[in-house]
């Protein structure tokens, strides 16, 4: 166990690794609420692994998400209700690379944590439970299938990673989840829910040292020995990347075209701290080129190429990173052309933007400081192991120390013109 302090934010935190390999981070805050999130590095793209018999097991698409839904249900009760009886709210979510189980509460923190550790570490899967969940998740899949913004995003990601599990929706399809049964869930569970693959972050109202000691004791009833990390077959089959799908179009019942352009990053950063710095540099440079303070934004806005629906984002998870730009627009071709041109001239423009850089950096720091008011956000932001043991407070320090030169270097590392794709959803015209 070690304690870190951040005097400028009057903040301390306690972290460590338990004997069984589980990572723990405890962040005390003077709030009513406490929030805890227990994360396994197991997401929708982890579809193949080598099991203890040295056999390669392949899971149906949507397995991680399905398991997330089912882990709450036990033989004679539902963990969700146990939280409810204590007055806590619980939930869970699955991404491409992680599954997180969380609760927030203003009372009974220890008892809630005990339930969280217990239900995640004691699986129970039944045929009947699986059957029932297929209907619920089937409706979830249909709901997203009717949402243009969801289709735009998943379609774009499929274009970027056409040969990998990322081409499939996190929830899978109604067909793929039909293949799920208790055996499938148990095999995935045994591989990916070992304590060595788990990380617990708690932010809120507690004494961190006392809570740490309590956790050590509590967790010892499940396992005290460290098992090896899961043996995934690969994060992505095609890390160097060559074959993106250039463009796809979908017809839907939309009022006007939706367009998304995306750029796939191929720069690999091994060191977690350097990886964070790279991410922050790319995020800031995208803001300098595209956010609503830029001449680019104003020009495209005035031309009607974009409107308030314009957005861009940068996502980095285990094994991949990419940027997206999207808008609803009647000029989808002009939109992608404009984004491409801005990227093409980015390096020469950035060179002239020292003044803007300082203002943008100040703005980014301020927004991050503003987010320190949410235990959920603080805990979720570094709930996976991707960036090592950093927290939002380390991120703030890194952000403050970035220079324009860092951004220009990151730009060269990130932007490769042949790694882009576009996806459009066009209105279905009545015939």
């Amino acid at each position: 166990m070690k304690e870190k302090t951040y005097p400028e934010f009057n903040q301390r935190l306690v972290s460590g690794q338990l004997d069984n390999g589980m990572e723990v981070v405890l962040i005390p805050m003077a709030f009513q609420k406490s929030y805890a999130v227990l994360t396994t590095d197991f997401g929708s793209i982890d579809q193949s692994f080598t099991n203890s018999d040295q056999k390669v097991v392949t899971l149906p698409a949507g397995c991680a998400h399905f398991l997330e839904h089912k882990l709450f249900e036990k033989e004679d009760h539902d963990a969700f209700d146990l939280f409810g009886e204590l007055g806590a709210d619980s939930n869970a979510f699955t991404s491409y690379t992680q599954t997180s189980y969380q609760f927030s509460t203003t009372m009974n923190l220890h008892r809630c944590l005990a339930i969280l550790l217990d239900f995640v570490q004691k699986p129970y899967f039944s045929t009947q439970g699986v059957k029932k969940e297929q209907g619920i998740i089937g409706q979830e899949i249909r709901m997203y299938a009717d949402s243009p913004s969801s289709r735009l995003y998943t379609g774009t990601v499929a274009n970027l990673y056409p040969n990998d599990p990322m081409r499939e929706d996190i929830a899978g399809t109604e067909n793929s989840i039909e293949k799920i049964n208790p055996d499938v869930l148990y095999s995935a569970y045994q591989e990916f829910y070992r304590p060595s693959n788990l990380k617990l972050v708690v932010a809120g109202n507690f004494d961190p040292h006392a809570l740490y000691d309590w956790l050590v004791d509590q967790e010892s009833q499940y396992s005290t020995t460290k098992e090896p990390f899961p043996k995934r077959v690969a994060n992505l089959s095609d890390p160097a990347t060559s074959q993106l799908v250039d463009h796809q179009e979908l017809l839907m019942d939309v009022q006007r075209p939706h367009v998304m352009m995306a750029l796939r990053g191929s720069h690999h950063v091994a060191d977690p701290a350097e990886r964070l710095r790279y991410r922050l540099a790319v995020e800031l440079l995208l803001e300098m080129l595209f956010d609503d303070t830029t001449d680019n934004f104003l020009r495209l806005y005035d031309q009607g190429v974009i409107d308030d629906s314009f957005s861009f984002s940068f996502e980095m998870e285990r094994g991949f990173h990419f940027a997206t730009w999207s808008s609803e627009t009647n000029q989808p071709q002009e939109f992608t052309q404009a984004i491409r041109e801005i990227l093409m001239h980015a390096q020469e423009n950035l060179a002239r933007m020292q003044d803007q850089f300082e203002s943008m950096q100040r703005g980014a720091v301020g927004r991050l400081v503003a987010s320190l008011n949410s235990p959920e956000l603080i805990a979720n932001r570094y709930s996976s192991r991707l960036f090592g043991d950093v927290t939002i407070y380390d991120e703030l320090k890194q952000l403050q120390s970035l220079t324009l030169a860092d951004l220009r270097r990151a730009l060269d590392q990130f932007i490769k013109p042949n790694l882009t794709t576009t996806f459009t959803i066009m209105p279905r015209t009545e015939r």
Partner: protein
Amino acid sequence: MRYQLAKGVNLQVQPTQKFTVTKLLVSFATPQTFTNATTRNLLANLLVSGSQHYPSQTAIARRLADMYGADLNAYVARIGTAHTVRFSSTFVNDRFSQPGMLGKQLDFMREIIFQPRLVNGRFDPQIWRVQRDNLQAAYQSVKDDKQYYSAQQLMKEYYRDDSPMQMPSAGTSERLTSVDNDQTVAAYRSMLANDQVDIVVIGDVDPETVVAQLKQWPLADRQALAINSLYYSQPSWREPHQKIEHQSVMQAKLDLAYSLPVYYGDSSYDAMVVLNSLFGGSAYSLMFNNIREKESLAYYAESSLRPLSGHLVVETGINASTYQRVRQLIDEQLAKLRHGMFSDTQFNQVKKNLLNQYRGSMDNLSAVASRRLINQVLGVSFKEDVASRLAKVDRQKIMDLASKMSLQAIFFLNGGR
């Protein structure tokens, strides 16, 4: 701390160091009509798209970035029958930025509200046209969000034809086509001169400084809203109004509206909140357990309250072929409430959950600010804390209230490709 800056201009300031940021919320309120919602939505968008000293939204965004990533936006919302234009600003406290942030933010907010970008007495025509077009596009996009669209259609069925509540607070596409620049200016002048103004400031501030600076704002005396007129009620429909629409969607939407004549601040209000949580307002509810968990007919099947207009709304996303079964199940859950067929465990779970949500919301600055604004406008204050109010809600009250609920409107978006 509460102040009256002029007649009809109210301020409350809550100093606290709990958060790293401070929040300013300024609301202009007037009775909603069929016409003003649309114009005022356009107006809100215009005012944050340029001002005298910041001629474009880019200039405004740059100023905000420079003030440590401060946030300023304008939007419309309804409080009962009152239509509000709201300006909201969130900014980092001095100890994380530089001295004098509060003063700078108040000045900037004043510029945005009182120094619009007018050219010859009209809004800058270029900005006006772009914002009108963007709002029109935003109205169109609503139709792409089937859940939201269905809820809107349900409201059309529920409200009486002659009620301005028919009109969404954001306005409509049809109305916008007949709004011109002069009308927008007139709406602006009327807002400044006639609307009730409510200001809420929460954060690391000195109340006297806030008051001194806000007293400089050009806000003259005006008529305050009549509080009783803010609560909406209408006679019940004899038969529920129904509408079915076909679209080529994967998932059908079945939405229902029930009259429930209890209002925010009433003695039965807390019971109504618990009732909603038991019916479909939480994941411990009868609808969640029976429609989703037991019969796996839906991913979402939920209810929510409209406590200023006396009704409750149910929203579900289902397969079209299960319409009858889901209707039947919703009826059954309501019958269970009427007959007290819910367990003590469930009842207590729901209450604890509501208490937890309430306490947790005290950590959320935006939630605290908007609750304070709404209470200020409605003149509502609760004498007891939430825990003891919830403790007083008994099973009989839930049964009595459930018996008063009457189905008033049904909207079904039929799909099932």
